[in-house]
């Protein structure tokens, strides 16, 4: 079986840190699935994403995306990859449309492509009426939605989202989740990190729970719930594997 992402024995330590951020992490993400990367704070989720996006090198192990080694083929991989960072990675002084136009030009899209794709995506995520409004005047939910659109403009095959629904209202969350499901139906592979277990249980085909830099459980939410004793929800599974102690 081929995977969109295949990670094997990934290790990473930051200078000065007492414990490694990743300690032999292995996971695999099938094509056209929503894959939930779950874990408490400091579990290694962000480090994994950074390595997958080529932002930092791994100390050892391999990360393969679309069959290509992430460290050796990053330019080719970047074109197929869309990252939705946890922060609103946009220019607040520009309007929504100006942000998309700028990014589209950097992706070498034609003006027609930029216009059409921006229009479609903004319509789909309910921002068409706010296209000419500066991002600094958007609400939190609107910014989150535009943050996702900006990562989809070049039509990537793989979308990595770092807590895309953090601090958003119920309506925006529902819209974002239904949109992600729509992306999956279009054949995109989605890697999604969140602290919202209910949300992950609802939309993820597969979830991987990581803790202390290692994978502690992987499978479909239902599979994990049914095979973990005494668990009725994904949150129970999460707490079962990661414990109840606070992580800051």
């Amino acid at each position, binding site marked *: 079986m081929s995977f969109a992402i295949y990670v094997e024995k990934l290790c990473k330590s930051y200078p000065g840190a007492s414990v490694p951020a990743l300690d032999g992490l292995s996971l695999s993400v099938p094509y056209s699935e929503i894959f939930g990367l779950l874990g408490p704070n400091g579990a290694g989720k962000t480090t994994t994403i950074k390595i997958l996006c080529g932002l930092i090198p791994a100390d050892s192990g391999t990360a393969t995306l679309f069959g290509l080694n992430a460290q050796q083929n990053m330019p080719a991989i970047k074109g197929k990859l869309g*990252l939705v960072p946890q922060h609103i990675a946009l220019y607040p002084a520009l309007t929504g449309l100006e942000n998309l136009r700028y990014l589209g030009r950097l992706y070498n899209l034609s003006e027609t492509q930029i216009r059409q794709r921006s229009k479609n995506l903004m319509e789909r995520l309910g921002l068409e009426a706010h296209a000419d409004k500066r991002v600094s005047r958007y609400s939190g939910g609107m910014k989150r939605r535009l943050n996702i659109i900006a990562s989809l403009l070049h039509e990537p095959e793989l979308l990595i989202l770092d807590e895309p629904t953090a601090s958003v209202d119920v309506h925006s969350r529902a819209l974002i989740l239904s949109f992600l499901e729509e992306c999956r139906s279009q054949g995109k592979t989605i890697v999604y990190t969140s602290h919202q277990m209910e949300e992950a249980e609802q939309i993820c085909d597969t979830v991987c729970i990581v803790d202390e830099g290692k994978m502690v459980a992987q499978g479909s939410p239902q599979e994990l719930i049914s095979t973990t004793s005494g668990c009725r929800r994904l949150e129970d599974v999460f707490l079962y594997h990661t414990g109840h102690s606070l992580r800051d």
Partner: protein
Amino acid sequence: MRFAKIIYATIIKEWLILRRDPGGLLILLAMPALLILIMALVQDAPFRDYQNLQLKILVADEDRGTLSEAVATAFHKSPGIELLDSVEGMPLSPVRLRQLLQQGKYKIGLIIPRGAGNELANAANSVANSLSASMSAGKLPQRAPRDSMNIRLLFDPTTRPAFHLAIHAALDKAVSSASMQVLMNRLNKLAGNKQDTTSQERWTAMMDALSIRDEQTGTSMANTQHLNSVQHNVPAWAIFGMFFIVVPLGGHIVREREQGSALRVSLIPGTALGLAIGRILANTILCCLQFIAMCLVGFLVMPLVGLPALDLGAHPWAITPVVIATALCATAYGNLIGSVFRSGIQAVSFGAISIVILSALGGIWVPAEILPKVMQGMARCSPLHWGLEGIQNVILRQGSWADVVLPTTMLLGLSAILLFIGFWGGKKAEESF
């Protein structure tokens, strides 16, 4: 094609962001314009030559003889100097003169003691007698010289040392001239020559036979400019203002990194160089426009406040490469600050303070020539020094294209170093996303 598109897109983006940042525009345009205006006004008086100032010199003349006349004649030839021998209708005595100086109402006073002219005549007789002895001519009356006879020059403590020297030299010349004239009269008398207007004219012609004329270096004498407040302050503070691009640019780069937009664009393949060039170009163009705006202040606003208009010299276009290189260097420095510092406050604070330090070193506040030797050596490390040097070569020293080669090369070299460090810092910063 794609490369050009990235550069174009980045220039448009930078322009839109700047246009919507009133604070940044204020720092870049309004504040330097105000600074130029204020500094030019404040430094106007210190930059003026003493000849341009109206100086009133109090004279307590207790002698009222030929020496007094000679001194009065000498100073009357100096434009801007007025001798006052009475104040409020009262003739000045030495005591009154000192009082007026102590009150700070006047800056300079001159006391010619009683008998000064006689002392001069006695000295001249002495010289004439010694000459006539060898020629078996007659003898003039002579007595022993008096040690205490001095012309006294008094200054208010706030008077600039340059004025002391200038007035002292002018007085010295007047006394020498009077001494020579008295001596010539005495020799004529011994020789039995009549004192007539012809001999007086000959004497005057001899004194004027060899005079000193001021000239400036430069290829076009017609356009030669004196260093005045406007000629120094407009280019100096315009360069200072250009380097203040560090504040909005450095802060903007840090903000992009904090907000994540830098991360987003770093994930777009093949954009790194185009993005960097686009940003550098956009801000370099902005700095050049800023310099033009400051020159317009020099041309149009300075005359409105009673200052001379800025004159760009005989070859005004020769400042173009210096201005572009200075703008590039300022932008490269802003890029470095934004790349190296991790927080906006650090970047903005360090950027602003470092520009003030570099400007002081570079001769923006006072000309580098009057700094100590060590500081003059350090000034060469400041890009602001080379920017000012290049522009002054053109607008003050009447230089042309050849005279801006060295400053331009130095600025481009410094820019290359700053861009390299900035690029390296940017790579390091990417690892912290």
